[in-house]
């Protein structure tokens, strides 16, 4: 607690942080560049100067950098002081000497922190009339464009990319007035978080290349509050649309989940929405050809099929919304609804849900992961399966600096001091996975083993922490010693954390992780667990308690049925023969927004909405329900587009003219029908929510060209689409933030506040800068942990004994393993070539050389891939990259036989 005096006003604040952060939290504007709430202070740019006084009587004062000055009790400062204002304007004028006057052609324009700060300081006229320094730009890959002339040398890019995200291929070159930020040579930026450079850079050095070809100013785009569907974390995103296309994805701040940062898969994977080959009309298959039909006829055709007397089976999807899955369950009946997950995925997700429900270990969020001081990663390559968690994990390791700062009484927001104090010391992170990960560099120790052996290590750690948990027989000395070492490190920590998940496809691994988290509880009530699940709505589907995909397909194979498949490509989940057998004698109705292999076989295909054209709710790995809202109405630009949410099609199929009116009704019924979903409607305000009688605008106040947007189609401007499903309006009309009235955080479509056009505007929506959004971070927790102490899991698996066949370990990829993002062209450029990974010993035994083609037989399928001999892989294991071309759907733990030759 501290009292500070700013320009004669007195404020009661928390104290301890720096004056810049404190003043921004108080809603006072001080311009800055090198400071960032997630990157702390280095005092490099001198932009945040204010005048500090000894006391109330001091009239002289001295200029200090507010980001480097601690907020202590009885601090007296002035932001308005004339000398400070002049100083700040001078800084901008210095920066401007070399900054090009290219705002009209710069893609940062309109959401540029440098523009905002220039206006804020009042530096309106450029006086420098001489030559500016210029640089050659680099080719940085499919995501990021580079324009070094615009650089103001704030160093935020390298402080994010290297210090925060652990990148190694972005550097600073030269010195003094000739400083260059880029790679050592041209080439793709390697970090999976490179996209954040576009938001971290205060000007237009690093911009979004995927946006560039169809560029639109921020103020001309229409945004919506949305949720990323690229993994189970549920990062909040803000897609921007113009002319019926998603043009870019921006980060939408969420204090507990994504904070200020997204992964590249989430940011650049939106291209599937804009694909030309998407189904946009209703298609009915006649004589082997697909023909577009109108909605009435198609729905009648489907109704006839549903009433033909055959059993009707519904196959839902963990990448579809709760609403769509619920509507399908309503249409086909509870007993005929499948969750659309493979038996293994469904069982593992169900197990994760059970662990969360049983408690007592709390489920970690990315922001709580950052505070952990000892971490075990058991079996999960989170950089591939839940990338945002891997970025948080890196901060947990670096948290050592905070502890050391506290011991030395140095504020931990002094970034340069913290880095110097900690050098390379990190909090202990142990990475036990089947194969090497790209976060091994922060590991105190790594351990490579097949899933059952990882589980055995996990059980042994739990036993070392609590002797009443099951012991592991016959563990080798080295592993036993590692278990002791990890147990000791977790025990010595204040906030230990276990990260695991469904990634290595083995229940025993998840059970062992749970045992560890539970064994820690007695001594460490702050110990947490984090379990990544396969897809964006996997936990949501687990709450439906439905049968799995194999069971549904077995029924269809046994008896000719009508299969209604919602947003699910069955061929991506199970071997083609198994799917073919089920579809051979069945009628197939598909609702999807992509023309998948399954969709191509449909007798009738209904064009479903992607996240951008529809509303829905997803439930993330923690059991947090979050609503995503329609970004735009595609029919506004093209009346022939019939795209609608799957739940809306299913509702119309079932109820015809009596179809429900809006999303709220669907949610209310889902809540009533499924007790596990209780509370889901509260994930966001409903459609009747208004502020002073007005809806909330999706587009910024300055959006231009609305009356002319459709003039090429027809000269009269139609009424903008009316949104019956939410409190948002499809235009710039309504509450847009200009009036200073808070919108609920769930309904914030974009970051903009008066004077703040850049993503730094998020600081205006937080109760405390860098903390929770005012009104609370979005989402409702549907999974409640019981307080009771659960019984330990006890099914300790046997060690893997190589017996000739190899055990399949799925290797998830950041790019390529997730279905929808892999349909985006920029992502496709980053997907690695397919391979099959073998240990050095197995390769020698089989006589296989690196890059030589091998033939693999597993689950009745035979295919060939180039071998990759990897020293990190344990013996007896075949590592296969999930989802890459030429790799069929995998079942983790299957036995594969491998032979030389294609």
């Amino acid at each position: 607690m501290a009292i500070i005096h700013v320009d004669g006003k007195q404020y009661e604040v928390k104290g301890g942080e720096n004056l810049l952060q404190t003043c921004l939290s108080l809603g006072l504007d001080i311009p800055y560049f090198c400071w960032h709430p997630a990157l702390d202070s280095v005092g490099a740019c001198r932009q945040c100067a204010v005048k500090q006084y000894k006391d109330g009587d001091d009239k002289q004062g001295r200029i200090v950098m507010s980001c480097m000055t601690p907020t202590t009790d009885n601090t007296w400062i002035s932001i308005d002081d004339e000398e400070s204002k002049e100083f700040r304007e001078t800084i901008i004028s210095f920066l401007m000497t070399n900054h090009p006057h290219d705002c009209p052609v710069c893609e940062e324009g309109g959401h540029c922190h440098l523009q905002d700060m220039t206006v804020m300081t009042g530096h309106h006229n450029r006086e420098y009339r001489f030559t500016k320094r210029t640089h050659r730009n680099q080719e940085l890959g499919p995501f990021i464009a580079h324009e070094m002339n615009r650089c103001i040398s704030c160093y935020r890019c390298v402080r994010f990319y290297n210090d925060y995200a652990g990148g190694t291929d972005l550097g600073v070159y030269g010195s003094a007035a000739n400083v260059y930020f880029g790679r050592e040579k041209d080439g793709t930026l390697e970090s999976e978080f490179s996209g954040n450079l576009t938001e971290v850079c205060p000007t237009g050095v690093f911009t979004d290349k995927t946006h560039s070809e169809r560029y639109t100013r921020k103020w001309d785009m229409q945004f919506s509050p949305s949720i990323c569907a690229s993994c189970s974390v549920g990062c909040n995103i803000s897609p921007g649309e113009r002319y019926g296309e998603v043009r870019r994805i921006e980060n939408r701040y969420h204090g507990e989940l994504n904070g200020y940062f997204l992964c590249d898969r989430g940011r650049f994977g939106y291209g599937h929405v804009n694909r030309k080959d998407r189904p946009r009309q209703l298609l009915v298959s006649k004589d082997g050809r697909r023909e577009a039909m109108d909605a009435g006829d198609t729905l009648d055709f489907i109704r006839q099929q549903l009433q033909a007397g055959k059993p009707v089976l519904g196959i839902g999807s963990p990448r579809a919304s709760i609403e769509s899955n619920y509507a399908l369950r309503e249409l086909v009946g509870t007993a005929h609804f499948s969750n659309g997950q493979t038996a293994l995925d469904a069982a593992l997700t169900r197990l994760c849900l059970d662990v969360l429900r049983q408690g007592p270990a709390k489920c970690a969020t990315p922001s709580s992961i950052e505070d952990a001081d000892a971490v075990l990663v058991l079996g999960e390559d989170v950089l591939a399966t839940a990338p945002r968690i891997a970025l948080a994990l890196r901060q947990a390791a670096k948290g050592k600096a905070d502890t050391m700062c506290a011991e030395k009484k140095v504020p931990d927001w002094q970034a340069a001091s913290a880095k110097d104090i900690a050098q390379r010391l990190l909090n202990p992170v142990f990475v036990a996975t089947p194969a090497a990960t790209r976060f091994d560099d922060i590991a105190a120790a790594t351990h490579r083993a097949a899933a059952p052996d990882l589980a055995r290590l996990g059980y042994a750690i739990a036993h070392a922490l609590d002797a009443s948990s099951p012991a592991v027989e016959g563990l080798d000395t080295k592993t036993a010693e590692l278990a002791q070492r990890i147990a000791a490190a977790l025990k010595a920590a204040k906030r230990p954390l276990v990260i695991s998940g469904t990634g290595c496809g083995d229940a025993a691994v998840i059970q062992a992780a749970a045992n560890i988290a539970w064994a820690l509880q007695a001594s460490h009530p702050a110990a947490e667990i984090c379990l990544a699940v396969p897809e964006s709505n996997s936990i949501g589907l687990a709450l439906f308690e439905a049968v799995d995909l194999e069971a549904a397909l077995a029924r269809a194979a046994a008896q000719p049925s009508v299969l209604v498949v919602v947003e699910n490509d069955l061929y991506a989940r199970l071997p083609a023969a198994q799917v073919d057998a089920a579809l051979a004698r069945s009628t197939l109705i598909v609702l999807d927004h992509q023309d998948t292999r399954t969709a191509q076989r449909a007798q009738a295909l209904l064009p479903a909405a992607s996240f951008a054209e529809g509303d829905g709710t997803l439930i993330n790995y923690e059991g947090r329900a979050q609503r995503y809202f329609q970004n735009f109405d595609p029919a506004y630009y093209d009346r022939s587009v019939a795209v609608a949410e799957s739940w809306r099609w299913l509702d119309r199929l079932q109820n015809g003219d009596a179809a429900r009116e809006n999303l709220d009704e669907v949610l209310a019924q889902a809540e009533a029908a499924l007790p596990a979903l209780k509370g889901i409607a509260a994930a966001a305000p409903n459609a009747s929510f208004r502020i002073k009688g007005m809806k909330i605008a999706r587009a910024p106040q300055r959006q231009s060209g609305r009356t002319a947007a459709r003039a090429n189609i027809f000269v009269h401007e139609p009424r903008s689409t009316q949104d019956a499903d939410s409190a948002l309006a499809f235009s710039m009309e309504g509450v847009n933030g200009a009036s200073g009235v808070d919108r609920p955080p769930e309904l914030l479509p974009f970051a903009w506040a008066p004077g703040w056009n850049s993503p730094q505007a998020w600081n205006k929506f937080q109760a405390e800068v860098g903390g929770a959004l005012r009104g609370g971070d979005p989402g409702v927790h549907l999974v409640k942990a019981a307080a009771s102490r659960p019984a330990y899991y006890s099914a300790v698996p046997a060690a893997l004994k190589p017996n000739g066949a190899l055990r399949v370990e799925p290797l998830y990829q950041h790019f390529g393993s997730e279905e929808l993002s892999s349909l985006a062209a920029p992502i496709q450029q980053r997907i690695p070539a397919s391979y099959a990974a073998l240990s050095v010993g197995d390769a020698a035994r089989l006589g296989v050389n690196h890059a030589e083609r091998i033939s693999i037989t597993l689950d009745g399928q035979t295919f060939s891939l180039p071998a990759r001999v990897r020293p990190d892989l344990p013996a007896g294991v075949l590592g296969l990259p999930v989802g890459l071309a030429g790799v069929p759907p995998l079942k983790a733990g299957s036995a594969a036989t491998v032979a030389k030759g294609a």
Partner: protein
Amino acid sequence: MSTDKVVKLADLNKPSFVLSDEERHEIEHALTHYPDGRAASIDALKAVQKHRGWVPDDAIPVIAAAIGISAADLEGVATFYSLIFRRPVGRHVIKVCDSISCHLTGYDELRDELEKQLGIRYGQTTKDGRYTLLPICCLGACDRGATMMIDDDLHGPVEPKDVAAILGGYQ
């Protein structure tokens, strides 16, 4: 007639840069002086420069791997220090002090004389590859201004009339 240089297959397959045994030995020796490979960055760059006169671009990833840091990090060090040469230099490098004491004691006459006699300007190398002319900030010999340094030898005070004789000593 085409004037393109003939590309030889053998050249294409040659690794672009290989450390000599001597260079590798010196870098490994430097590594023993520090707890952290990063600290040996300058020593490692100087080792290569000692043998080759300069540090080619292709050398950066190789040296970086030898001391266990990223190429981007090492390139940052190699471009920060003006005495790590990133372009070929002449057999002898002339560094003319342009700091304040030498400014007062005849630095510009000295520079003009060097430029006249060598026929080159700052940053350039004579056609015969004998001299490279560079400015340098303070040589720490303010009592002997105007000063210049050729290779490792300090000269000063130097008057324009002395230049020819001094240059003659560096073949």
